[in-house]
């Protein structure tokens, strides 16, 4: 981020972004729910070139016992990137500092909406695998995980989703792609509870003025409404067109 010099491409020019989008348009988003057999709930999302799989298990007995709560289900989350998910060199498998942080903030977003009091002494596990990354993986992960949780029948106060905004050549824009993420002036991912408007995940880096912050949140909120429709459609499709076999199809 904030790279300067001759390598930095022009990101915003005469109303258009590098990939031709306007400031308030999202990349294409497709969600398919119920793609795995063993997981209690699952969802696959293609968001731009991101390809991400979410699987949910639970509520089940919380192991190890010392993690248990007498009052609620413990939410666990593992966000992980496949070693072949990036364009660059082969990644290392297993958690790193970044994936641990993202697992934590994603888990905390869901702790607000999962009605965990219904399931004392249990755990609900959310597993996110980034199969292909293209910028904005944590937002796509939250969006897919919410659908997977709904597919698992976990009671939630709301179907949440997430989207980032960025600042590119002084302009606020929604859903940064990989280039905008790498070269933009700032990046601000956030998750919303669309029903209440509450912000459940909020991160930011780079530089923003007070006005730009407000503009960014507004842009993200609008985009979040569009994403919610796609999530609802994905869940409805599972019941409208029941599948004989669960199967991940990647195009």
């Amino acid at each position: 981020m904030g790279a300067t010099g001759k390598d930095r491409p022009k990101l915003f020019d005469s109303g258009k972004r590098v990939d031709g989008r306007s400031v308030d348009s999202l990349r294409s988003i497709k969600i398919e729910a119920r793609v795995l057999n063993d997981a209690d709930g699952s969802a696959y999302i293609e968001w731009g070139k991101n390809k991400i799989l979410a699987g949910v298990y639970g509520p089940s007995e919380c192991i190890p016992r010392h993690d248990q709560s007498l009052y609620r289900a413990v939410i666990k989350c593992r966000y992980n990137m496949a070693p072949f998910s990036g364009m660059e060199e082969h990644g290392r498998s297993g958690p790193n500092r970044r994936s641990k942080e993202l697992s934590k903030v994603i888990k905390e977003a869901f702790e607000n909406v999962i009605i965990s009091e219904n399931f004392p002494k249990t755990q609900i596990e959310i597993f996110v695998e980034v199969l292909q990354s293209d910028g904005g993986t944590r937002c796509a992960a939250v969006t897919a995980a919410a659908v997977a949780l709904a597919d698992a029948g976990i009671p939630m106060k709301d179907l949440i989703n997430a989207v980032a905004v960025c600042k590119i050549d002084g302009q606020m824009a929604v859903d940064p792609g990989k280039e905008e993420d790498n070269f933009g002036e700032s990046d601000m991912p956030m998750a919303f509870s669309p029903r209440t408007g509450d912000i459940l995940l909020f991160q930011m880096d780079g530089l923003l003025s007070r006005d730009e912050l407000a503009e960014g949140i507004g842009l993200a909120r609008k985009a979040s409404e569009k994403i919610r429709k796609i999530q609802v459609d994905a869940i409805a499709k599972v019941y409208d067109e029941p599948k004989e076999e669960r199967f991940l199809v990647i195009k």
Partner: protein
Amino acid sequence: MESINEIKRDVLSAVLAAGKRADSRGMYDYRKIVVQPAILQNAEGSAMASIGKSQVMVGIKFDIAAPFADRQNEGVLSTSADLLPLASHLFETGPPSEEAIELARVVDRGIRSSNTIDLQSFFLEEGKVLALYVDIYTLDHDGNLIDCSSLAAMSALLSARMPKIEEGKIIRGEFAGKLPIKEKVVTCTFGKIGERMFLDPSLDEEKGMDCRMTLATTSEQLCAAQKGGWGTYSERDIMELLDISMEKGKGLRELL
């Protein structure tokens, strides 16, 4: 869990003794197999394969690495397997289990010993070679992950493109033709309960079976094998399984 496996074994062996299988397959029938090649763009090669409800994804990446000390003129082939916790309630997070390491090594041996990839062509210069990473990513576990993984790995290798190299560096997103593959290696895995042997064990059958045998073959020869479990095989069993593997291999190769 022990007692459930005992019960499963009793039921399965009763069904198998009657010459039948719980899901009404023949003894040497595969479940439905689907292979999807070239599904990812960032990886140099990729594929998905499913056998019944088992689903495995494989991604191929190339990097530049130092050669092994005893093989200075050869590239590096590295195969690893992740039994992802989202694939099964039986899998946990953490360092690779014995099962994951065995899976990766069996798939690796098939690819390596068949010489399907010419590792000498991966030599770049003194102390610099290409490394080829085959990452097995299990997404759904309903038994026979070995055959499912080797199908996905072979399909991914067949779809893989050679990276473009300039001044000793890989230019990402640009390619220099396809990865040359000499042989389509496939594996056939058989379970055994009592004296009964059967192809493509489901997860239930795996839980109840005494042992398993995996045979990796090219169109002409056996190229790797692995026995698992506590049971035993006679020489005649192994010869019989090789004949079936050679026959079944033809059908598997047609899917690639």
